[in-house]
């Protein structure tokens, strides 16, 4: 019998956790593979770096962990694994996984249900790599006005990495979806401590799942996924917000109907308008799921002092939902005129593209620089303010405020 890697209780839950829930976890499979050792080894002190991560990730929450990348890493083509942001919805993360006994289950409306080990995935299907931006739909939520409750991400819930694994469509084909296969769901090893919390599960239509790009990835930047970023396997949907990039994949299930789970039908939705925008006084009744990313650019915060009459190099990154970046423009006069920045190496249409521009400030005092990107498809960041009740999909042109000395 295949082992099920049980999510181990990550921290001291205290007396409030429902015993019924806990026993449900035990009943879900064998206990083996779930070694916590918490009785003998106390957890690290709260001010220590998170495992495999730099010390100065921005701490939003520790349970579940939501940790943000410092903005200086926007200066790099590839986000180092120890700086990649961390975001989990539900607090019982898998804390002990045996790579030898782990199995990915593929089932549901298929002819041939599968249970695949990591070695089988590698051996049976062609291995491929793709560079793609991993961005939380709520990245920069804290910049919306009026403010919106939720994890108060700044600009660091985003990273760029090379993802290595096998194509989702190959694994699905091996399982043989039957006639009428409509959608496919993805569930991970993480759990919530209460039964009442909807299990984190996302779905893709069969058409999207059979596309060229979606991957079942085991490596990030040519190293195994960190535990905090979804070891041993995660879904990667290049060009789409990373709510779909389910971590610590456990089960892929083909359905003959549309999935009606909470995290698709109620959460991660935006107004069904052209710009996914509404006002607090007039919330839209019709909503659609967030899906493909909109075009976006960010500044790397300058580290040097900016002086009047001295050349300074501004830099940043830009990306879109998968067509690539055609231009990045900067404005030094509040948007009246725009000048092209220089685009750096093209790492692929799903990756971010670094850009640089040289500026000689003419006046001392406060100054603002705006940046806007245009995708290959022609989508451009617009200055019209946008808002939605959940704080998703922000992409207004960034404004860098500086002081010239």
């Amino acid at each position, binding site marked *: 019998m295949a082992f099920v890697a049980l999510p*181990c209780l990550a921290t001291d839950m205290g007396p409030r956790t429902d015993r019924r829930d806990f026993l449900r976890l035990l009943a879900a499979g064998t206990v083996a593979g779930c070694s916590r050792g918490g009785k*003998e080894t106390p*957890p690290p002190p709260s001010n220590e770096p998170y495992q495999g991560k730099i010390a100065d990730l921005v701490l939003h929450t520790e349970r579940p962990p939501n940790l943000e990348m410092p903005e200086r890493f926007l200066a790099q083509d590839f986000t180092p694994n120890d700086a990649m942001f961390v975001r989990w919805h539900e607090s019982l993360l898998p804390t*002990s996984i045996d790579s030898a006994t782990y199995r990915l289950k593929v089932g549901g409306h298929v002819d041939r249900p599968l249970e695949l080990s990591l070695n089988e995935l590698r051996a049976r299907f062609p291995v491929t790599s793709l560079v793609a931006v991993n961005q939380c739909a709520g990245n920069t939520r804290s910049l919306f006005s009026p403010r919106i*409750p939720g994890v108060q991400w700044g600009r660091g819930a985003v990273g760029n990495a090379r993802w290595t694994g096998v194509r989702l469509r190959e694994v699905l084909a091996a399982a043989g979806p039957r006639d009428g296969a409509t959608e496919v769901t993805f569930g991970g090893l993480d759990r919530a401590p209460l039964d009442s919390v909807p299990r984190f599960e996302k779905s893709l239509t069969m058409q999207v799942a059979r596309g060229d790009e979606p991957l079942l990835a085991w490596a990030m930047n040519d190293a195994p996924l960190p535990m905090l970023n979804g070891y041993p396997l995660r879904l990667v949907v290049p060009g789409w917000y990373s709510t779909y990039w389910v971590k610590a994949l456990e089960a892929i299930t083909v359905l003959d109907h549309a999935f009606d789970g909470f995290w698709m039908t109620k959460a991660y939705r935006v107004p069904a308008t052209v710009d996914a925008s509404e006002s607090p006084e007039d919330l839209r009744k019709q909503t659609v799921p967030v899906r493909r990313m909109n075009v976006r650019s960010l500044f790397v915060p300058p580290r040097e002092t900016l002086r009047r009459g001295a050349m300074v190099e501004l830099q940043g990154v830009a990306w879109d939902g998968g067509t690539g970046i055609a231009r990045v423009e900067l404005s030094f006069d509040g948007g009246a005129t725009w000048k092209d920045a220089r685009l750096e190496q093209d790492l692929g249409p799903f990756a971010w593209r670094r850009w640089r521009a040289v500026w000689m400030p003419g006046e001392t005092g406060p100054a603002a620089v705006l940046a806007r990107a245009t995708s290959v498809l022609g989508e451009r960041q617009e200055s019209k303010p946008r808002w939605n009740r959940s704080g998703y999909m922000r992409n207004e042109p960034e404004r860098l405020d500086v002081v010239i000395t």
Partner: protein
Amino acid sequence: MAAWGILLGCSTRSAAPPSPTLHTLRLPSEDVTLPDLPGRAKVTSGCVACHTPRYVLDQPPLPRKTWEAEVDKMRKTYGAPVADDDVPALVDYLVAVRGG
């Protein structure tokens, strides 16, 4: 915690060397002190079962109406164990800590 350790058989595992294929994650302990204002106990009892109270501290000042909606969502959507009678005091606390 001690009971869970026994149920998981953890105490017997420490004798064997760890398997080379075992990947583990150690998460730091939670160390959050909410401001000591009236109603703090409602957060401790009703919210902490699922998540750190630091979610509260991460928020900007929010209007009372917004906090009421958040508490409602936690109770109705996620099943937070907060009794009807405890809602006003809980909202009062959240507004006291992060209201504006």
